[in-house]
């Protein structure tokens, strides 16, 4: 326990225990709010309350911390200024981005927020370390502090750069296909060795803040090298994993500055984030290791099937589609990433309304990994006010396809690819929507282009299938117009 005693001397807290104990209890209350909040978020009806409760807990934690700082009295006026201006500025940016971003860009925004969270966690350790190291004649920083500082900095920095790359891939300013960095493995090895050396040096008792910053830079590079070779399709899982990383980094920051609140909330996110990552990977039929190893959906995989499969394609026009839909009994709409990319969610709702007015039974087949993030289609269609009850899960809707007159596939590709039923290709084993069982099929997409897995889709060459080549938004508008003109809805 000698280590602890040493660290006490250099710690920033005042000895006024009673007040502090009160603050700790309040932080514990806040953490309890986080837990109950997450619990409530396990089910749709209570999810909203859960998030609000969690936010209340956060507000309480921040207020308590401000009270503690004021009570402590060690803060300088400049310190207050940094804290206030920084906090307000950051909050403003966060709020603006959160409010203004398009629905389809949410995953990359979450990734960005995660990046800065990891960065903040790393900075906390760096700032504390720099401060401790700067105290003249200070004894060696206790192992307890230095070990957790290094962990915090490494995890936080990897998260910072890795999450930015992930966001970039989703946003498109970094190519989303797997980018294998030449010599990546070698660079990683060198960096890892450098990290170990630096850590050893710090643990040997050198209060070297430069070394810690060097470690941070090495970790930043590692984050980039880690995420670059992973394909964009796997990004949501990667973001979730990095989210769990940040939680862990925050917990480490809690060890560094001796804050139970940070330890609890950080560990909570570290663990729940890991479980969530596993659930997400399971839903995509992938293993986390497999994803992090990277390379899914490379050009290689595409060429395996991409060769000869292209058979006869039947191309159809808006009028054909309109008539087919208007005289159907039962239409199942299969939305995919293309719907999101074209922002066509409102149009699809309008078309569905039109059809329902004519007495057509319309439902939506939601594949768990359609789009680019789990729940993507739900979020999107909910935005367009599609009734929750019309959204059917894969398990619910698959038995209904044989009874559907038309399956209307809008910008979906991989999730409908019958190749998934065969082994040996990039989508093998993924559960798919049984679109090919419908009586007839219409596919709206711009070209014969590939989906995320980068392989051909035999559905498109099925004799029952009509391809309507158009941007999802433009195509739907054309169909709506055609339905109105030709069939003459009141």
């Amino acid at each position: 326990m000698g280590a602890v005693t040493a660290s006490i001397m250099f710690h920033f807290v005042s000895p006024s225990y009673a007040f502090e104990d009160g603050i700790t209890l309040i932080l514990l209350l806040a953490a309890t709010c986080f837990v109950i909040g997450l619990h409530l978020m396990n089910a749709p009806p209570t999810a909203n309350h859960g998030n609000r409760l969690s936010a209340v807990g956060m507000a309480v934690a921040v207020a308590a911390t401000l009270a503690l700082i004021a009570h402590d009295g060690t803060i300088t006026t400049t310190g207050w200024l940094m804290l206030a201006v920084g906090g307000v500025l950051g909050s403003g940016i966060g709020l603006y981005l959160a409010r203004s971003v398009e629905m389809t860009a949410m995953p990359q925004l979450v990734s960005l927020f995660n990046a800065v969270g990891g960065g903040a966690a790393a900075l906390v350790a760096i700032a504390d370390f720099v401060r401790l190291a700067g105290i003249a004649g200070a004894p060696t920083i206790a192992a307890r502090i230095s070990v957790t500082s290094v962990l915090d900095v490494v995890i936080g920095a990897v998260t910072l750069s890795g999450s930015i790359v992930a966001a970039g891939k989703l946003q498109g300013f970094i190519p989303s296909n797997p980018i294998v960095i030449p010599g990546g493995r070698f660079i990683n090895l060198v960096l890892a060795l450098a990290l170990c050396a630096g850590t050893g040096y710090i643990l040997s008792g050198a209060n070297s803040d430069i070394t810690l910053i060097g470690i941070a830079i090495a970790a930043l590079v590692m984050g980039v090298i880690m995420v670059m070779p992973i394909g964009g399709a796997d990004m949501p899982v990667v973001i979730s994993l990095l989210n769990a990383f940040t939680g862990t980094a925050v917990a480490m920051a809690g060890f560094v500055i001796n804050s139970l609140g940070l330890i609890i909330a950080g560990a909570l996110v570290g663990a729940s984030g890991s479980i969530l990552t596993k659930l997400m990977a399971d839903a995509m039929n992938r293993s986390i290791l497999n994803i992090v190893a990277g390379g899914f959906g490379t050009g290689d995989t595409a060429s395996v099937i991409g060769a000869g499969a292209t058979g006869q394609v039947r191309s159809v026009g808006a009028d054909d589609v309109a008539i087919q839909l208007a005289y159907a009994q039962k239409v199942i709409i299969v939305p995919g990433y293309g719907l999101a990319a074209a922002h066509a969610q409102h149009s699809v709702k309008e078309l569905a309304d039109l059809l329902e007015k004519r007495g057509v039974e319309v439902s939506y087949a939601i594949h768990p990994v359609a789009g680019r993030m789990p729940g993507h289609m739900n979020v999107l269609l909910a935005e367009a006010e599609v009734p929750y009850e019309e959204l059917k899960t894969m398990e619910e809707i698959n038995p209904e396809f044989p009874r559907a007159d038309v399956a209307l596939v809008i910008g979906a590709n991989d999730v409908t690819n019958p190749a998934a039923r065969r082994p040996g290709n990039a989508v093998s084993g993924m559960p798919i929507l049984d679109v090919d069982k419908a009586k007839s099929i219409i596919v709206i997409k711009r070209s014969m282009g590939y989906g995320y897995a980068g392989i051909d889709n035999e559905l498109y060459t099925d004799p029952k299938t009509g391809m309507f080549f158009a941007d999802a938004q433009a195509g739907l508008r054309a169909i709506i117009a055609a339905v109105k003109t030709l069939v003459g809805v009141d």
Partner: protein
Amino acid sequence: MDTSLITDVTIFVLSLLVGFEVISKVPQTLHTPLMSAANSIHGVVIVGAFLIASTAHNTVGYVLAFIAAVFAGMNVVGGYAVTDRMLQMFQRRPAPAAKEATEQGGNS
């Protein structure tokens, strides 16, 4: 308050256990909002950023604290706001005007 390493570790492990247990069978629809919610919670690092600001006494300290505060502020406020926006989508809307068109929409 300075707590002993051993209690800190105990608290860390217990919090991990809570985290593991609190996520149970979430419907896939909620995966993204839940990820975003967890993301907001680690925004609690803002507490750390503030404490760092409270002990800063030189330029380096101030700059680091400032950046940390900006980052953490973005994380926490943006995180909750974006999660809230996602979850708004799941709310039963009290039959807005736009609903009129779906009167015979069956089970809606």
